């Protein structure tokens, strides 16, 4: 395969496997504790969620399907009445602070006017209704979160920061900083602590653990994304909320985290404190992993948009990346991350891997057969068949659910990556490599 010294983007057929974006419900309902998610779709959507959520489904999740029946499709039933009935039922049973409507492929096709109906039902039942179109016609997997956060961003109060300061007489060291992207509470605290070391106080998170405590974002606010798949949210924050976006690589791996914090310090006009030292210390702790992973090759089939950041970090660790498959590439939102990828490749004296947008899984498997990478990062549909052919795999979805952000969690990324390779060294003693 030919690789170059420049970034090259290719686009294939888009016949690839990924999770439906409605899967964001699984982590967002947990994150936003007073929410309720209503996915308006068909049995197919329900079946996917039921299976993808695994045992979570038995924990009485604050989510449900608004399952469309034949009468809904043929417009024999009135959308407004049906949705209102369901929302009243939800209010009675769960009493959430906000109901999120997740639009699906079907609501798109039958052109159900969710955005139009929501404000009417909202005012009649007295619970905010946020509409996000997280459908498989337009989006892949983690982009579902992006659609929800973009919708949620519009609900944030947006008082002008300077006015607010004057009114309340607040004198702060720096302009207010709001971070966007849903992370587990533990990681939120770790990152807050990390920024506290730089004398930065986070003014709020989008989303926060409570709908009722949405952060104020207005003219004069700075915002920074923690995940590479949040381009729509970033756009809404900039255009609608007049916030300033801090463009940087994402806080994944010690290299990404250091630059992310540095860019925030720069934007807030603060001198960073001991940041390089902090990064060095983390790298030292990763030494044993890096020694093990160095020179081993990786192939990203692409399904969750974390691929660029992960590939960049793994290249920095001395791994060789053959291909970065990715569902969708926002070159503007990911600009700083792409630049860091180029720099990292230069520094490590390796060629820049191909970036394949909307990949074709069939062709990818052909390439995998040719290249025989040490590790393929892929979805569960391909993992077992590849393993049976003697190719090590790591299930890509784990990167979305594991704690991977910030200095403290860098090691978990390498743990995930090393696990199949370490396991393989045991199995080599058995002598069997192929199981077909």
């Amino acid at each position, binding site marked *: 395969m030919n690789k170059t010294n420049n970034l090259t983007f290719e686009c294939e057929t*888009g*016949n*690839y*496997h*990924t*999770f*439906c*974006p*409605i899967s964001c419900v699984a982590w967002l309902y947990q994150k936003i504790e007073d929410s309720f998610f209503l996915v*308006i779709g*068909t*049995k*197919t959507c*329900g*079946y*996917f969620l*039921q*299976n993808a959520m*695994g045992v979570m*489904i038995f924990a009485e*999740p604050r989510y*449900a*399907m*608004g*399952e469309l*029946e*034949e009468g809904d*499709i043929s417009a024999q*039933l009135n959308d407004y009445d*049906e949705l209102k009935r*369901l929302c009243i*039922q*939800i209010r009675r049973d769960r009493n959430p602070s906000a109901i999120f409507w997740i639009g*699906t*492929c*079907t609501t*798109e*096709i*039958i052109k159900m006017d969710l955005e139009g109906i929501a404000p009417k039902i909202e005012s009649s039942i007295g619970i905010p209704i946020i509409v996000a179109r997280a*459908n*498989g*016609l337009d*989006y892949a997997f983690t982009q579902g979160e992006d659609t929800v956060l973009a919708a949620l961003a519009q609900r944030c109060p947006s008082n002008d920061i300077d006015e607010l300061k004057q009114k309340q007489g607040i004198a702060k060291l720096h302009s207010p900083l709001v971070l966007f992207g849903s992370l587990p509470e533990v990681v939120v*605290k*770790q990152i807050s*602590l990390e920024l506290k070391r730089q004398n930065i106080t986070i003014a709020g998170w989008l989303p926060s653990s409570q709908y009722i405590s949405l952060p104020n974002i207005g003219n004069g606010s700075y915002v920074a994304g923690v995940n590479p798949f949040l381009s729509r949210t970033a756009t809404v924050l900039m255009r609608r909320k007049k916030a300033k976006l801090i463009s940087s690589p994402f806080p994944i791996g010690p290299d990404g985290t250091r630059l992310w914090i540095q860019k925030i310090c720069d934007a807030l006009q603060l001198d960073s404190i001991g940041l390089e030292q902090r990064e060095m210390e983390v790298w030292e*702790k990763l030494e044993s992993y890096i020694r093990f992973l160095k020179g081993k090759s990786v192939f990203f089939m692409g399904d969750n948009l974390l691929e660029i950041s992960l590939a960049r970090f793994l290249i920095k660790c001395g791994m060789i990346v053959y291909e970065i498959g990715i569902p969708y590439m926002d070159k503007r939102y990911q600009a700083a991350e792409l630049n860091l990828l180029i720099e990292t490749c230069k520094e490590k004296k390796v060629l820049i891997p191909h970036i394949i947008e909307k990949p074709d899984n*069939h062709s990818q*498997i052909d390439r995998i057969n040719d290249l025989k990478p040490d590790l393929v990062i892929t979805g*569960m*549909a*391909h*993992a*077992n*068949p590849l393993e*049976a052919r003697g190719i090590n795999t790591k299930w890509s979805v784990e990167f979305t659910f594991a704690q991977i952000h910030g*200095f*403290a969690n860098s090691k978990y990324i390498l743990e995930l990556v090393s696990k199949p390779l370490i396991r393989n060294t045991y199995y080599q003693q058995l002598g069997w490599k192929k*199981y*077909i």
Partner: protein
Amino acid sequence: MKLAYWMYAGPAHIGTLRIASSFVKVHAIMHAPLGDDYFNVMKSMLERERNFTPVTTSIVDRNVLSRGSQEKVINNIKQRDAEEKPDLIILTPTCTSSILQEDLQNFVIRAAQETSSDVLLADVNHYRINELQAADRTLKQIIEFYINKAKEKRTLNNIKTPYPSLNIIGAVSLGFHVQHDITELKKIFHDLNLHINLIVAEGISVRDLEKLPQAWFNFIPYREIGVLTAEYLRKELNMPYINTAPFGIIQTAECLREIATLINNLNSSTLVNYEDYIDVQTRFISQSAWFSRSIDCQNLIGKTAVVFGDATHSAAITKILAQELGIIVLWAGTYCQTDEAWFNEQVKDWCHQVIVNDNHGTIAKLIFEYKPDAIFGTQMERHIGKKLNIPCGVISSPVHIQNFPLGYRPFLGYEGSNQIIDLIYNSFTLGMEDHLLEMFEGHDPENIIINQSNITWSPEAQKELKQIPGFVREKIKMKIERFAEQKSIYEITPEIMYIAKENS
């Protein structure tokens, strides 16, 4: 619109894909948006499938929405044909694509002209039928297609085998213990000198289907998938069929007797008699009849149970509990609403009440109201049981990966009876053990764990600690305390917790 949290039977296209992926060299192409190919994940995970699932998607995206699929579907069919050379390609619409009302049948006709494989459009209505009904229909559709094709080509082999023979219809991927059941059936039929002509569909090619009529009769182990095909073959080719599943000792004997009668009616020159076989198997090979007699089982008499699952398994387990073990079945239920009459007929004499419902909330309420000693149901009932502290044996789909065991676990036949009795007995004894432990005030873990550290936890840290899942909390707590001790820190704050975590 219906508020739904859980479904027992999946959407229609899952049924079609289960049939398609059971045959070899059959490829399914879903006409669906991105992310609808979740079937591949299930097949690869649950069945630990070594091969790539022969299902691809012709993606419906924004462009398709505005301009129609046009050549896209046809090109995808042609590409699959060229690359994989399957015998048959099945174009499978999903709920979403079916409302686009594209003329998929036309695509199929056009594509078929340019492919070496046959091409079919799965004929299922996504808003009216579920996974099981769709599987039943698709299987019939494929068989009808190949029977007709063989008729046209005059290759249909209508000459019966010289010795008694049968087709087993209903071996389908992702079925509950289906592979083990089929192995068990093979063993029994081998013992009885009954020749198995074809097993449909797991592992056979659609080209084999023209051999179907050679068998003397068809055997349909399950209610849900195969009956439509059997009916079709009865009408079309005059093939009789048996749909009594050999579950448990009594019903297995009944099933084998039905087979003997059928064979003897078909050909009076070779009379068969399975009574000796039934007798030896029941008394000595299988342990379950003896178990019913043994004193262990006396303790089960009068215990109460509820049963819920697909029609086949729920009815069979109900009968085993009541007939073979003397357990009181408070209610027996199924989510297969279309099979209500059959189910009712099967279980009405063996339980106090018959429930036909596919709402898990209703089922949970019923379990709560009746408070049985044990539940036999699906994964959902297992979790309901967990909440209510009632043991549960899983007897039917939908199931998780633990119900695709590596070991040999048939539910059918004589070995199946053993397995079922183990499952039933273990469920009840577990419940009893818990109950006794509670009576004698339980295990006493407090006396085992001795806490001698002089480290205190700040209220915030305690709160943080509570966030950690219970099963690892104690371990993490110890690790953090050990770290703190080494650093001579005596009060744990959240900050210390993070530093400890980072350094662990």
